[in-house]
């Protein structure tokens, strides 16, 4: 068993893999992650010369190429950034790095392909077990922890009713997340709760939200936009029916989808919803007293600044 304090110390400085989305549509997630890291005294070392994790597109053409691309990110973290814990806030990146780790540990053919392509590309081949990939939720939970956040935030989010939306890639497929479902203290793949725990520590009221791991329809956006809009509208309506004022997100794809299709649902189907959409890191940042601007809230598509002021969070 790992000593909790040692573990927290180990995670105080991690290799940070923002991924492509956080440099674009999910910029508010990147900005707020960096802002809370600074405020909490945690150090993020950007993975040097990182590349795309392979996302969904590459995986759909050839999953082994995706395994290779993710393995290169891990190789860069270990060999160039000299840190063997990689923190990936994006669910897609987190999922793909975990999947690559699993594939390399269990599939000889994947190992051969990664070795062949790594040699060809002229970098060191990543081998399973050299690094550990964690999510931003793990990172905060295991360093500052619920008790630490409670002390630092002084219940600043008191009374704010939040529906925590994890999306589908944070917990699926179960077998690539061996550290989950380990009983008390560990994350659950059927009922994830780390985001609930962190926001509750900051004073928020987590509502009972039945679609917390439901698909946001992100993959449909290009092939059938109406289907994506309907899936998102249903999630927004479920959050409102659960009495939530805010949906907290931890995935840039889900977040962008919720924001864009909230607008589209009104234009296309005449269905207006008022629930606000904010990254959990933005909410934690507000709880830590960081200004909305420093958290990139003004860069979100949906307007939350008036609401934040009304709630006395500035």
């Amino acid at each position, binding site marked *: 068993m790992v000593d909790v304090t040692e573990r927290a110390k180990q995670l105080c400085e991690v290799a940070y893999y923002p991924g492509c989305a956080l440099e674009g549509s999910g910029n508010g997630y990147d900005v707020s992650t960096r802002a809370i890291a600074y405020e909490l005294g945690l150090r993020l070392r950007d993975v040097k010369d990182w590349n795309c994790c392979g996302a*969904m597109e590459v*995986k*759909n*053409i*050839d*999953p*082994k*190429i995706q395994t*290779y691309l993710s393995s290169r990110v891990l190789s860069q973290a270990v060999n160039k950034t000299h840190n063997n814990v990689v923190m990936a806030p994006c669910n897609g990146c987190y999922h793909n790095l975990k999947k690559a780790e699993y594939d390399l540990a269990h599939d000889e*053919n994947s190992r051969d*392909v990664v070795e062949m*392509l790594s040699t060809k590309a002229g970098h060191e081949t990543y081998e399973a077990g050299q690094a550990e990939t964690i999510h931003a939720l793990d990172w905060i939970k295991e360093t500052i922890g619920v008790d630490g956040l409670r002390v630092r935030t002084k219940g600043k989010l008191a009374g704010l009713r939040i529906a925590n939306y994890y999306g*589908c*890639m944070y917990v*699926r*497929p179960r077998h690539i997340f061996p550290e989950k479902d380990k009983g008390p203290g560990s994350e659950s793949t*059927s*009922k994830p709760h780390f985001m609930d725990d962190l926001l509750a520590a900051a004073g928020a009221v987590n509502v009972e939200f*039945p*679609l917390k*791991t*439901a*698909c946001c*329809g992100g*993959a*449909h956006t290009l*092939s*059938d936009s109406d*289907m994506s809009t*309907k*899936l998102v509208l*249903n*999630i927004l*309506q*479920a959050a409102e*029916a*659960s009495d939530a004022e805010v949906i907290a997100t931890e995935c840039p794809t889900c977040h962008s989808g919720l924001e864009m299709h909230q607008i589209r649902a009104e234009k296309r189907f005449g269905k207006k919803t008022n629930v606000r959409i904010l990254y959990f890191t933005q909410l934690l940042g507000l709880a830590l007293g960081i200004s909305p601007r420093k958290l990139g809230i003004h860069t979100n598509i949906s307007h939350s600044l008036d609401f934040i002021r009304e709630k006395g969070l500035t």
Partner: protein
Amino acid sequence: MRSIAAIETRIEEIQAKPTANAAGELVSLGEEVLEHWICARGETPTHAKKEGFRLLALHRQGAKGDPSFNACRETCRELVYHYNLVTLEPAHSDTMKRIQLAALVAKHLVLFVGGKMEVSGLGEFCCAAKPVRKNETVAS
């Protein structure tokens, strides 16, 4: 068997005007959705029950050999959970709200499965894309 669109319409009717006895119907509608998926795979929908619910047995059948279908596993379980809440505490002050939430959960199921069936003709979507994977390309 009703069409996917007809199931969606019926769920929307319940969502708009929830009634105390709608919980059972929502579970049945969920079963119909899964029957569509299973029939589209050329199989016969099971009449077995898992943990007392055919819905859960149908989900298990639908996910066999297609792990991406597990993306609606918790949706099915949430529908069952809300059914249990309503039927075990019918006089609870939140009953109508619970029915409404169950309708939203059932709606997610019909949208997710309907979308998955629609796009499967293109070679599946989301975390699947099996037809392409089966013909491994560059790296194999």
